[in-house]
């Protein structure tokens, strides 16, 4: 079976490292090739890593509430880099405070994400969908 490559990271000035480590382990155990950029990852680093590793998907985390500001333009950078149609997920505490989830989801879909996950997400909630989206 084909091994798909995921680029993983926590965007912006965000240092929440625990969920990131757990996702890395879980995706690896699920058979993915995981490139974990860790915390404090810039948009540029995401794009470069995806290019370099010929990644199949980008998994963005944001826990600290600034995602809205941090992800703006990321999809455009990917398009510029020629990998505009790469699968991209985001998860975590995406806004400051709590907002209606459907609004949050819509907002981040507009910002270029294929799927948007709330903070209570467990790895096993994502992996089946991810497999399906990657045609596995």
């Amino acid at each position, binding site marked *: 079976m084909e091994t798909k490559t995921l680029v993983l990271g926590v965007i912006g000035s965000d240092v929440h490292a625990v969920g990131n480590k757990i996702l890395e382990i879980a995706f690896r155990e699920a058979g993915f090739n995981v490139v974990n950029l*860790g915390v404090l990852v810039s948009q540029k680093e995401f794009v470069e890593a995806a290019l370099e590793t010929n990644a199949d998907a980008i998994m963005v985390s944001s826990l*600290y509430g600034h995602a809205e*500001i941090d992800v703006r333009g990321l999809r455009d950078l990917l398009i510029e880099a020629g990998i505009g149609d790469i699968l991209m997920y985001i998860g975590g505490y995406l806004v400051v405070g*709590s907002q209606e989830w459907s609004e949050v989801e819509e907002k981040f879909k507009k910002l270029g994400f294929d799927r948007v996950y709330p903070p209570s997400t467990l790895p096993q909630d994502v992996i089946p969908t991810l497999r399906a989206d990657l045609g596995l």
Partner: protein
Amino acid sequence: MSIQINHHKLDWQEMADERHEVLAAWVTGQDVDLEEAIAYHRAMPSKLNFAHTLTKAKQAGRTLAQPRAGVAELGAHIELLQYLQNEGEADLLPTTIDSYTRQNRYEEAERGLEESVREGRSLLNGFPAVNHGVDNCRLLVESLSIPVQVRHGTPDARLLAEITLAAGFTAFEGGGISYNIPYAKRVPLEKSIRDWQYVDRLTGYYQEQGITINREPFGPLTGTLVAPCISHSVAVIEAVLAAKQGVKSITLGYGQCGNINQDVAALQTLPLLAEEYLRAEGLEDVEITTVFHQWMGGFPNDEARAFGVIALGGVAAALGKATKVIVKTTHEALGIPTKEANAQGIRATKQVLRMLQDQVYPENPVLAQEREIIMQETRLILDRTLELGDGDWALGAVRAFAAGVIDVPFAPSSFNAGRTMPARDNEGAVRFLSWGNLPFNKEIQDFHRAKLEERGKAENRTPSFQMVIDDIYAIGQGRLIGRPR
């Protein structure tokens, strides 16, 4: 990294150029006038002085309650703090700084602030004090009737300290290790320790003028299964480093682990250890107080359950006689709390504190053993650290982290070895499944091994990383220990 550091007091005169440079980093820096600031502090009523309030509480054997809170815009932030003071009945107030400021990204903070004003809601996760500047911050301080502290997570907080201390804040959280290892990825410890010596020296300068500013290393570190010996080691080192720069009021922190005996033992040993190592350096006139952080890891989504976690934190704080407790809210797992939720967390905590304030956790052998373990482990780490530093705590800290002699679990920093693996034992106390390079002797190693084997037996599985993952999710799922179901 070419910075040469040591633990000696910085020369104030020699710092002049550096201060100049720091103050030039953002336009608001130019408003800092130290002599005027000192006069401002002198004119402040003592009820607004953080250190003064802590001393009174310590003497009375009372535990004070302090929330976390910060929003982008000044008016909204004042309103928030006044609410927590009046409706929340907070004893001490915070000003939580946003994450851009923490990374010295003042331009992004400016943008976030502008957008927040425009949208009428906070797009920043805290108050960008540097961008607001001295005068605005003073409006804040003056609008309150209890002391207020700067709380953040900034590896290089020199400008933030200059501005907020000049503005009349009387307490400043953070330290060269505790605001680096959990809060940064590529900041060398030499740099952050040196930058925090600046903050401590500045505090020491205020002290020389008779103005006591309280300093508080960040106790909980990554907030996730951090055993007392790790956070105590960092706390003691930062206390020594701060005291060397002339700081006289230091609050040392510890984040709730969840086992009441371990938590009480941790609170009891923290000042003992600090005083022991300060004394060894001849630093005797420092007042040590303690802060207990209610559970810093993942919280339950459900508000009622969260109240349970919060109240249990209040119980441990009270029984351990912490000088203050940092209060969580029922929105912890939902996002930044509303002011109502924040006030509720404080009131629930204060009810518990008050109902327990006259009660004493009875001395007993289990507690004594827990204290003994913490003392031994911490001394092993600290003594090895000092050895590595050839008698210098600053150097020792850098080398100890490089060697994994101090090692914070789940820390994002690349200067942290990341070789330890904590897990709960069968009674929920945090132990080590792997201790990496922590300089534990055979006795201590056997202790941890036995404790985790005991749990393994009870759960009918071999201790492994799955236990750690289970423990990380456990409290959020309503239990302390991540048992298999």
